[in-house]
């Protein structure tokens, strides 16, 4: 009756059925009574209202029965939920990194992937990290959802029970491209998983460049690429030293990207807006990035110029 997509489907869907069942029963019952009364006691048929005394017994009954029912529904919900908080100790650990507007999955050994590949019938524990704002880790078919909150170590876990591709969506509103922040969950047999993991490359970036660290830490990469791809903002590749069109208070003019311009772009990004982009998307980093750190970022941008 219930799908086996994950070990939680049964508990959650059972709660759905029970609560919907009780609700539907009352909806139909009360609506029918209402309609019957409106027809039967219509003024035309029933010109004189009968005044009825309150009955304590009736009032007690219709307080007690709903009370018992809600306690029952509470219990069913709790029962379906509890296993979601009891991850087994030997689960496969995956670090889920959410940033505007991209999911990255890091497997043991710093191996990173954009697709969440997992072996079937094996418990997987997701450690949820956010680089910027709150995101929501949501796999509808698995009945799994937990917020990815910056500064907090949330987790969730599940045992996938069906092979195939499933949607992973971001459920917590996180800005411009919230609705595009999705990824694929791919459930594969265990041996396929082991081979796939062995081939997965270790992420390689120049992690020691001071400027890179700042840019990474402040989440600039969610809008700016370093490979020439146009994301929400212009790419950083070959940006330094180039001549670009910007809009300043509605007038277009040319500007050369130098240290001064980069400083302005970081501290007051909506003053000179790169032509073709909307103002208000990049926020000011005044107070978040120190003035003395900005030259380091400029130095880093210089390394992204084609030789």
């Amino acid at each position: 009756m219930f799908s086996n997509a994950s070990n939680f489907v049964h508990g959650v869907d059972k709660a759905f059925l029970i609560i919907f069942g009780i609700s539907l029963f009352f909806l139909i019952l009360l609506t029918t009574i209402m309609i019957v009364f409106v027809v039967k006691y219509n003024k035309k048929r029933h010109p004189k209202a009968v005044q009825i005394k309150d009955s304590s017994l009736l009032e007690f009954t219709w307080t007690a029965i709903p009370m018992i029912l809600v306690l029952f529904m509470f219990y069913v919900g709790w029962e379906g939920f509890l296993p979601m908080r009891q991850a087994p100790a030997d689960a496969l650990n995956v670090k889920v990194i959410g940033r505007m507007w991209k999911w990255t999955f890091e497997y043991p050994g710093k191996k990173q992937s954009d697709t969440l590949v997992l072996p079937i019938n094996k418990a997987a524990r997701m450690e949820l990290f956010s680089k910027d704002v709150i995101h929501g880790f949501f796999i509808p078919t698995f009945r799994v959802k937990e917020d990815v909150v910056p500064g907090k170590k949330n987790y969730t876990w599940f045992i996938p029970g069906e092979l195939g591709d499933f949607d992973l969506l971001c459920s917590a509103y996180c800005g411009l491209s919230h609705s595009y922040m999705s990824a694929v969950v791919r459930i594969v047999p265990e041996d396929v998983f082991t081979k796939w993991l062995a081939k997965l490359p270790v992420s390689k970036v120049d992690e020691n460049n001071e400027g890179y660290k700042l840019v990474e830490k402040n989440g600039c990469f969610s809008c700016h690429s370093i490979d020439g791809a146009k994301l929400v903002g212009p790419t950083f590749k070959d940006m330094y030293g180039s001549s670009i069109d910007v809009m300043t208070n509605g007038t277009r003019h040319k500007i050369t990207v130098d240290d001064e311009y980069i400083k302005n772009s970081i501290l007051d990004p909506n003053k000179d807006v790169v032509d073709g982009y909307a103002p208000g998307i990049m926020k000011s980093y005044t107070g978040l990035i120190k003035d003395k750190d900005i030259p380091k970022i400029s130095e880093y941008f210089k390394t992204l110029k084609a030789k």
Partner: protein
Amino acid sequence: MSNEVNKIEYVSYLEHQGRFKGLKSWIFATDHKRIALLYMYAIAAFFFIGALLGLLMRFELIAPGETIMKAQTYNGLFTVHGVIMIFMVVIPGLSAVFGNFFLPILIGAKDVAFPRLNLFSWWIFVFGSVLAVASQFLKSGPPDTGWTFYAPYSTTTGTSVIIATTAAFILGFSSILTGLNFLVTVHQMRAPGMKFFNMPLFPWAIYATAWIQLLATPIVGITLLMLIAERLFGIGFFDPNLGGDPVLFQHLFWIYSHPAVYIMILPAMGVITEIVPTFCQRKVYGYKAIALSSLAIAGVGFLVWGHHMYTSGMSENARWFFSLLTFIVAVPSAIKVFNWISTMYKGSIDLKPPFLFALAFIFLFIIGGTTGLILGSVATNIQVHDTSFIVAHFHYIIFGGMGFAFFAAIHYWLPKMYGRLYNFRRANIACIIMFIGFNTLYFPQFVIGIQGMPRRYFDYLPQFQTGHMISTIGGVILIFGLFYMLINLIKGARKGPKAPANPWNGSTLEWQIPSPPSLENFDEPFEVKANPYDYK
């Protein structure tokens, strides 16, 4: 009572000549009835703007991909739509309009306790609303945080969040002052002989609501100030980069905003409790239970805020605790439904427009309430939290509930407020069109929500398209019904046939005075009944 009361010549409050003339006699009026109408005009305008913005969003969602607007515009739209509807329409809504107009009359008073404060509250409301509208037109762009202003997105986005939160902060003051005014009114201004348990049930509902307004609103005020301070001065309350905690924001926000849900729905229940007995010509069933359950809902409502945060990473204990309380608070609401329906038993039912709206309310409210159980249960909440299921649920509660109660109230009291009647047949047709449109608009969203359609999505996966398309068609029907109703009401209020003092054979005090009432409401002696719903 002596027989030789000196007869005051009857002049309706609409015609009364005060210190000012023309427009000024309205915007500087201290008469609770004129202030009520001022609120109503402002709120109705915002409501229709908000509804049209909602329809624009629906058009964007009719098909996957970019349809009629950009993602940033969509994000701005659901933010203003939410801010307008929540802070400028439903929170003031029934209490500022019908509470203002009828609370004093129903308890036999000539005005609220502090008439000038009342006018001041309206001005604050207007000022806050102007700011909220202004935030749309500033250079840095319309706010794009959603009406919930969740940190740290709200502390870091480049859009005009400060102005929008300041607006919400100011609107909060209007709400606090109105609440305070009504509390004192109920305590001090009741007519001689009217004890608490002789009051009709709408004043009871307004009374319970006023306590929430007074006690809960300051919390959101402080929260929004903290947010503003964080943005302006980098004080780290919520942003973890500054050493803050984003979940703290959610706690503070919902400690207010959950009770605020009851600010919206309690007066709505109060309205229905007035309308049902009148059109059944029967004493309301379970007077005490209804009166006290309002207080119970207001009280327990303060302790369930965590049900908005089951997935935020709260401790397991917090999760079951909030779930349990949420289920318990459902019981008093259920009792009210049972009471309304029992009041119909062996009544003499007159199916006039206000009663038809009340029936629609009860049906929609049962759906809204029972889907609330799905949200209150932790297991099912995991699946539907932050999906269109929630969107459907709260529209059923606040639009199907509070909105339809507002429509019921205006159809019930318009003859008293303007002294004229509207066309009943058209009102019934409007009700039916809206009822159909409403269910077509929101019911599909339950379905796609369970399947995993997240909310606040500008674009979506193709499997959700059918649901979204039906929903948009429902939106068009609903908007059509809304305008149809509006035109009928305006025509009625301006040119309809003259209304008698008591067109529905109601038993509460407002029906004992002329339509429209005079400036001081009670020019002649009146009878305070032991049970306000005494139909003999």
